[in-house]
C-alpha cells in the first residue's frame, strides 16, 4: 500500500505543489499583507509548472488506485489550467476593485480553484470527478462575491443556487449510474455499460442525461447558460475572466472522459448534443448583438465560443479532439488577454458600459491595438491564432460529412464579427470621452503582452504546436481510445 501511494505521489507533484501552495496562501492571508501571499502563490505556480514540465511524456498510468489517470489528454488540459491560473493571478493582483485587505484571500481561493481544475482534468472515477467539480464550484461561488457592492452578492447567490442544483442533479445521476452498474471508476463503468441490456439501457440513458446536466452547466451550454450573463456582470473582472476560461477547460476535459464512458449510449445522445451545440453558438451570438455592458457582452461571446469548441467534441474524431485542444489554447490567450485590457479600463474608469472604449486609441494606443488584436482573433480573422483553431474545428466537421455544422458555425462567426468590430469602431472612430493618458499597471501589461505574443506568434507559426498536439493525441481507430483503457 505504501508503495502505491509513493508511486502515485511521484506522478502527482504538480497537484501537490499547487494544493499545498493554496493552503499556505489562504492561511497566510489572515496574517500577512497581500504582497507576501502573492509571492507564495507565484512560488507554488512555478513549482507546479516545473513539476508538470518534468512529467512531460506520460505513459497512461492509473495512480491512487485508479482514481486519477495521467495521460496525454490530462497533460494538455493541465497545462491549459495552469496557464489560466497564472494569467488570472496577474489580473487579480492588478485589480483595483478588489479591496487590498481581501486580495490575499482572493489569491488563495484562486489557487484552490486551480487545484480543482487540475484534478478535474485527470479524474478517472466518479468520486474524484464530483469532488473536483465541487472544489472548482465552491471556490468560484466565493470569488464571485468578492466586491462590496450588492450586485456581487446577488451574483454569488445566483451562481450558488444554479450551481448547487446542477451538481446535485449530476450527483443523483451518478448514484443512479452506480445503481445500474455497480461500478464507480470510469474504465469499469465503460465496460459494464457496453454489455447493458434493453430495459436497463433506457435507465442508464436517463442517468447519463442527469450527469451531463452538471457538466453542461459548468461550460454554460444552452439551455444551462442562463446564469452566465448575470454572474459575469456581478463578479470582479478578474474573476469573470477566470470563469470564462477555467471551468470551460476542465469541464470539456470531464465531458470528453464522460463521453468515453457513455460511448455505448452515444448514438442516442448524439443528435441532442449536436442540436444543442448549434443552439449554443447561435443563441450566444444573437444575445451578444444587443448588449451594452462589456462583461455581459463577453458572457454571451463566451457562450458562443463554447458552441464552437463543442464542435470538436461532437464530431468524435481524433482530428476533432486536436482541433478542440488547439482552439482551447487560442481561446485561453485571446479571451484572457481581452479581459486584461478590460481590467485596465475598469481600473481607470470604474465603469463597465461599452462607452468606456470610446476614443481609447487616443488615450492608450498600445492598449487599443492589443484589444483590437484579441477581438479580431476571437472573430476568427487570419493570420491570428483564433483563425487557425476555428479552421481546424470546421475542417474536422467537414471531414466527418457534417458540412451543415461547419456552415452553421461559419454563419455564426460572420454574425459575431459585428459585435467584435463594433468595439474596435468605438475605440478608433468614435469621439473621445476622457483625454488623459491611460497607463495600465505592470501586471496587466505583462498579461496582455504574453497574450498578444501568443495570439500573433502562434498565429503566424502554428506548426510546432500543431505537430506536438498531433504527435501526442493522434490515435488510430476509435476517437479517444487514448483516454481510457479497459
Amino acid at each position: 500500500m505504501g508503495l502505491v501511494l509513493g508511486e502515485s505521489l511521484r506522478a502527482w507533484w504538480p497537484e501537490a505543489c499547487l494544493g499545498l501552495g493554496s493552503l499556505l496562501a489562504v492561511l497566510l492571508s489572515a496574517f500577512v499583507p497581500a504582497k507576501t501571499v502573492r509571492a507564495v502563490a507565484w512560488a507554488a505556480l512555478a513549482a507546479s509548472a516545473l513539476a508538470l514540465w518534468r512529467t512531460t511524456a506520460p505513459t497512461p498510468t492509473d495512480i491512487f488506485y485508479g482514481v486519477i489517470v495521467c495521460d496525454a489528454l490530462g497533460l494538455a488540459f493541465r497545462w491549459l489550467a495552469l496557464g489560466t491560473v497564472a494569467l488570472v493571478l496577474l489580473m487579480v493582483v492588478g485589480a483595483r476593485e478588489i479591496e487590498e485587505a481581501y486580495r490575499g484571500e482572493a489569491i488563495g481561493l484562486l489557487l484552490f480553484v486551480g487545484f480543482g481544475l487540475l484534478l478535474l482534468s485527470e479524474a478517472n472515477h466518479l468520486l474524484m470527478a464530483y469532488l473536483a467539480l465541487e472544489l472548482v464550484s465552491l471556490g468560484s461561488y466565493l470569488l464571485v462575491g468578492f466586491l462590496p457592492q450588492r450586485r456581487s452578492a446577488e451574483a454569488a447567490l445566483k451562481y450558488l443556487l444554479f450551481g448547487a442544483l446542477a451538481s446535485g442533479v449530476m450527483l443523483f445521476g451518478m448514484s443512479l449510474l452506480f445503481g445500474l452498474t455497480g461500478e464507480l471508476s470510469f474504465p469499469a463503468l465503460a465496460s459494464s455499460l457496453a454489455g447493458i441490456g434493453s430495459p436497463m439501457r433506457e435507465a442508464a440513458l436517463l442517468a447519463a442525461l442527469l450527469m451531463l446536466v452538471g457538466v453542461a452547466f459548468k461550460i454554460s451550454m444552452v439551455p444551462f447558460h442562463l446564469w452566465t450573463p448575470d454572474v459575469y456582470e456581478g463578479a470582479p473582472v478578474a474573476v469573470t475572466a477566470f470563469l470564462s476560461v477555467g471551468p470551460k477547460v476542465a469541464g470539456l476535459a470531464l465531458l470528453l472522459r464522460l463521453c468515453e464512458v457513455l460511448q455505448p449510449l452515444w448514438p442516442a445522445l448524439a443528435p441532442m448534443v449536436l442540436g444543442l451545440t448549434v443552439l449554443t453558438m447561435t443563441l450566444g451570438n444573437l444575445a451578444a448583438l444587443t448588449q451594452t455592458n462589456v462583461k455581459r457582452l463577453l458572457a454571451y461571446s463566451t457562450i458562443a465560443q463554447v458552441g464552437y469548441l463543442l464542435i470538436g467534441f461532437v464530431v468524435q474524431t481524433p482530428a476533432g479532439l486536436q482541433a478542440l485542444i488547439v482552439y482551447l489554447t487560442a481561446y485561453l490567450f485571446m479571451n484572457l488577454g481581452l479581459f486584461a485590457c478590460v481590467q485596465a479600463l475598469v481600473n481607470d474608469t470604474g465603469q463597465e458600459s461599452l462607452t468606456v472604449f470610446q476614443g481609447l486609441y487616443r488615450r492608450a494606443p498600445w492598449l487599443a491595438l492589443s484589444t483590437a488584436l484579441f477581438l479580431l482573433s476571437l472573430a476568427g480573422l487570419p493570420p491570428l491564432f483564433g483563425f487557425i483553431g476555428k479552421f481546424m474545428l470546421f475542417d474536422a466537421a467537414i471531414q466527418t460529412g457534417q458540412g451543415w455544422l461547419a456552415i452553421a458555425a461559419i454563419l455564426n462567426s460572420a454574425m459575431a464579427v459585428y459585435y467584435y468590430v463594433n468595439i474596435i469602431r468605438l475605440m478608433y472612430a468614435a469621439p473621445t470621452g476622457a483625454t488623459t493618458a491611460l497607463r495600465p499597471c505592470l501586471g496587466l501589461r505583462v498579461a496582455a503582452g504574453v497574450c498578444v505574443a501568443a495570439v500573433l506568434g502562434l498565429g503566424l507559426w502554428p506548426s510546432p504546436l500543431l505537430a506536438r498536439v498531433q504527435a501526442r493525441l493522434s490515435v488510430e481507430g476509435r476517437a479517444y481510445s487514448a483516454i481510457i483503457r479497459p
Partner: protein
Amino acid sequence: MAVRTLVLLAEALFCLGVYGLLTRRHAVGLLLSIELILNAAALNFVLFSRVFDQVAAQAFTLFIIALAACEAVVGLAIIIRLTRTAQTIYADEATVLKG
C-alpha cells in the same frame, strides 16, 4: 422489495428538493432544498453499496455529507453578505442584475 421502496424514497427526496429549489423564496429554505437533493443521492449510494456489496460507495456517501456541509457554509456566508448589502433574504428580491 425493500430496495424498490428505498429507491422510491430517494427519488421522492430528489423531487422534493428540486421542487423546493424552484418554489422557495427564502434563501435558507433554498439551501435546505439543496441538502435534500444531496441526501437523496447519498441514500442511493448507501442503498446500492449494500446491493452490490461495494464499500467504496459508502465512502462516497461520507464525502457527500462533508461536501454538503461545505456547501452550506459557503451558502450561508453568501446569504449573510446579501442580507448586509441588499437588506433582504428573499432570493426573488435580488434583482439588480437583469437583461
